[in-house]
């Protein structure tokens, strides 16, 4: 069989698939109101944000927040499993209505999709390594740094280490956070870099043998992603989120997961608050 012709037919197939007409530009809000269903993308392997527990149920902070948002929007949740790699493309292509999926706001992501306001969890990236092995982030120069493929740690970790000068690190990206942690335990990488709440859950039973290196960096402002260029829908989601913050629902979910008596207590307050010296740490909501 000639080699060339099948290749050109692949091209034809791919182009045909890509040049499909864009969907009619109605707001997602109209569709959600009409159908009473909102399609929420969440991860399934990222405790404590969103995961499937051993009995097969979806649990996590993002799951509960997504359910509360859907309640506010008077819609039923249709849950779509996304991973760090698919979550942006799905939104950009309009295949899901929002992501509540531990996603930090970044410029490159903002170019593809939009975010509801405010960011709902304020976190930071952390390097995690054997206790006492590294005195500071500067010592990670030239070392093997594990990240999860799809996390912006791939870019952020290298940039942070570069600030201290020295050799560029070797960034190794794994398919899952847990695989990166296994690699760290076994000494296949020298440090693992991920957002603070996720690291806290991953570290789990490793007890005192691993610890953060230096302080957090690269603000991870978790935002609810919405499809681009649909401000009607974006506002609806923002207002619903702020309503949850005002009426205490957010607080309840936050305390259950990250509060002092929660499942994964966080050392630093990750709630979306305004600067304390100006507003006395008032929650970040817009006035009417």
């Amino acid at each position: 069989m000639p080699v060339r012709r099948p290749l050109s037919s692949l091209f034809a197939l791919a182009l045909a698939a890509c040049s499909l007409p864009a969907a009619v530009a109605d707001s997602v809000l109209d569709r959600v109101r009409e159908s009473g269903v909102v399609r929420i993308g969440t991860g399934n392997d990222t405790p404590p944000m969103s995961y499937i527990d051993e009995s097969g149920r979806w649990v996590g902070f993002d799951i509960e927040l997504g359910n509360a948002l859907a309640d506010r929007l008077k819609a039923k949740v249709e849950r779509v499993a996304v991973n760090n790699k698919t979550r942006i493309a799905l939104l950009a292509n309009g295949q899901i209505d929002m992501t509540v999926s531990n996603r930090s706001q970044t410029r490159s992501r903002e170019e593809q999709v939009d975010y509801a306001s405010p960011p709902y969890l304020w976190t930071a990236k952390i390097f995690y390594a054997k206790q006492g092995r590294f005195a500071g982030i500067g010592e990670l120069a030239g070392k093997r740094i594990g990240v999860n493929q799809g996390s912006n740690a791939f870019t952020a970790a290298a940039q942070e280490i570069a600030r201290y000068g020295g050799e560029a690190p070797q960034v190794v990206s794994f398919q899952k956070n847990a695989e990166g942690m296994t690699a760290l335990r076994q000494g296949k990488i020298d440090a693992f870099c991920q957002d603070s709440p996720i690291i806290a859950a991953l570290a789990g039973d490793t007890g005192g043998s691993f610890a953060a290196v230096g302080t957090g960096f690269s603000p991870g402002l978790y935002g609810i992603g919405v499809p681009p260029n649909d401000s009607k829908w974006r506002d609806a989601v923002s207002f619903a989120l702020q309503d949850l913050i005002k009426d205490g629902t957010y607080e309840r979910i936050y305390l259950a997961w990250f509060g002092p008596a929660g499942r994964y207590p966080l050392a630093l307050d990750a709630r979306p608050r305004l600067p304390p010296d100006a507003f006395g740490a008032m929650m970040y909501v817009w006035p009417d």
Partner: protein
Amino acid sequence: MRYEVDWSILARPELAALLIDGVRYTMIVAAVSTGVSLVLGTALAIARVSGSGWLRWPAELWVNLARHIPGVFWVLFFYFAFPELLPATWGSALNGWTSFALAAGIVALSVDNATYVSDIVRTGALAIPRGEWEAARCCGLSPWQQWTCCLIPVTLRTVTPPLANRTIHNFKNSSLCMVIAVPELTWATQQIESLTFRGIEATLVATLFYVTVALALGVWARRLERGGYRHWRGAGAVWRRERGELARVDSRR
């Protein structure tokens, strides 16, 4: 649904570098593991046809075991579990080695491919007509000469086409190494998707690469097959009949 293809992202130097490196790693993994599995598989095949039960049974046992376990399992096993089997100092030395992921991937694919290679070589060796062995013996050749001058060349002819097909499989299987973060081509497409949120462009380029190389290897394999048939009717025909390929050659009349 909307997706606008944007080829310009592939021109961004850092992304193009990922693809180029990906091709390099894919070729390294595929070439080295194919080479290692040819040696390993041939050794297993010799053990399986040898007269000594001490050699034959362990080899049979191993091949029948390994044949039923997925390649991707071997990849994860050699990367995550194998160092745990070793004494602690050896294990941590392996874990500390920067190229360990690459090495584990190569070993895993070699183990996976070797069972198939050993089947092919064994079939090839068993397909040598009894007369060949007897003739070789009667001519007064020493056992070494019997192998090198007669039996190995004959077997080579029969086994080359199926081995070429196997090499195509192994080349495609190199993509499994993405699960242990070896930066080969499939990993690179996923990495580009995670950086740009656009997967189709890079995946299309990668697919074209795999398809082109696999089809080219396929054309080469068929040429070998036809050549083998012309030059060596005896053993080649036996193999072909067993493979059910004889009529395909006939039907071209």
